């Protein structure tokens, strides 16, 4: 997937993320402070606006890096820092890449994961977006030989399984932290957002194949 195709894909990801606000709000109301959906909407509507006809970037890395900077500067909240960091650190690791291959995706997710863990001090099992990000990064690395279009569905699946698993976890960070036992049974909203970003990539790819 080249730079222009990546821009198009990320535009439709951004658009779909904005549409997901009500669902994300419900989940953050259940175990957080109810603003995660609005934060995602705020950040990705700014991303969508940025990725208009006039947007250009030298390479795939730059596309993702500009997205990260936009998220970081406009979202605020825990998820602004987290998703901004994911995109910025991930993009840095594939700076100059002309194509978004599965290998590039794996590198992006893996470097992003490291940065996110450093930034927030959380790790897998703490009931955060890391629990969707980490299995997705592993799956992408595993499938590095496959075409992006062929691998992405399985990466999504890994992320979604991660989301499922957050239901069994007790939150130890963020506003859900002190819910303790009461967070059991509810998925982590940030993990859902993480899986949705990947899912909307896959949906965009599928739609293009169908056309």
């Amino acid at each position, binding site marked *: 997937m080249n730079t222009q195709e990546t821009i198009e894909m990320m535009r439709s990801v951004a658009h779909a993320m904005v549409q997901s606000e009500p669902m994300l*709000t419900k989940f953050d109301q259940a175990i*957080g402070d109810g603003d995660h959906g*609005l934060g995602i909407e705020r950040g990705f509507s700014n991303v969508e606006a940025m990725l208009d006809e006039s947007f250009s970037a030298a390479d795939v890395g730059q596309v993702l890096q500009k997205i990260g900077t936009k998220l970081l500067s406009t979202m*605020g*909240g*825990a998820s602004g*820092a*987290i998703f901004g960091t994911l995109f910025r650190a991930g993009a840095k690791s594939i700076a100059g890449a002309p194509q978004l291959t599965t290998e590039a995706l794996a590198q992006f997710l893996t470097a992003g994961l490291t940065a996110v863990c450093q930034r927030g001090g959380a790790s897998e099992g703490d009931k955060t977006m890391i629990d969707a990000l980490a299995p997705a990064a592993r799956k992408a690395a595993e499938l590095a030989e496959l075409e992006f279009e062929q691998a992405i569905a399985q990466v999504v699946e890994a992320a979604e399984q991660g989301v499922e698993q957050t239901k069994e976890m007790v939150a130890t960070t*963020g506003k859900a932290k002190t819910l303790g036992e009461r967070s059991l049974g509810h998925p982590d909203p940030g993990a859902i957002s993480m899986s949705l970003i990947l899912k909307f990539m896959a949906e965009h790819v599928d739609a293009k194949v169908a056309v």
Partner: protein
Amino acid sequence: MSKPKKLLNDPGEVAREQFEGFMLAAPHLEALPGMTAAIRKDFRPDKVAVVTGGGAGHEPMYGGYVGEGLADAVSVGDVFAAPSPDVIVETCSALSPQNGVLFVYGNYAGDNMNYDIAAELLEDEGIPSHTIRINDDVISAPPSLLEERRGIAGALYVLKAAGAAAETYSEFDEVVAAAEKALKHTASAGVAIAPCAIPRNDSFNFEIAADEIEIGMGLHGEPGVGKSKISSSDQVVDQIMEALAEDLSLKAGDEVCMLVNNLGASTQMELLIANRAANLYLQQLGVSVYDNLVGNYCTSLEMSGFSISLFKLDEQLKALYDQPCQSFALRR
């Protein structure tokens, strides 16, 4: 279930509009163009800059505590969302601080990360900073996990001490030490009896049954010690005061400042009745109250309930508390 009811304009614009409304009532501040952030007009760049901020929805916290003898600048995010690093960096840069920046804000993952990123960016620009994360909520974690405790209304005392110290002391480290001491001497705990709703959402963030309350509930609805049947105000206040007294190891002869703070929709009558019991508790302990604030100092939208904060004085902290201050929400 009852629905939230508020008189607003576009609920997506509340953070900006409330900030504009605040700025009109705070002529001693200057807004940063296009941002929900402001600095003191009379800031002296040679003093340590005390910089605060956080998500909207807690008015008059934090903007209300920017002014002479208090904080020097504030950055505000969207409702219950920390401001972004860009806004924080611009806020600090607008001060052109020559003696470093002391960040004072509530200990929440979102604030911590955004302020940390901002601090790193400032360092790149050659502006050193130190961070104090307010963690006065004694119910939110045990003393062994201080770094997990949330920040609530006690921020007022830390900002008061930090602001006074920054006016008085010229050494950065002295200001930091005074503010850190103030934080150690501050303890708070709250009780919620009805929930709040983010204006854009048309349902409440959590539910409390008609006959229930939750002691220790946080500013965004973070749980406390669990739901309990609604009892008497006196009983609830005693339970809160016990937690505070234990945390501060209060004993006869000690002197404190006390704040009984409305989380939002409680009647002023309930606050005063709680203030009565809180004072009686301290009297029985032999602890005297040097100054006593009762009102809306750190809110959670329309949450109903209150928090009590104690600020244990020593000679230094008392002198800092006694210094004059002028801001939207605090004048002495």
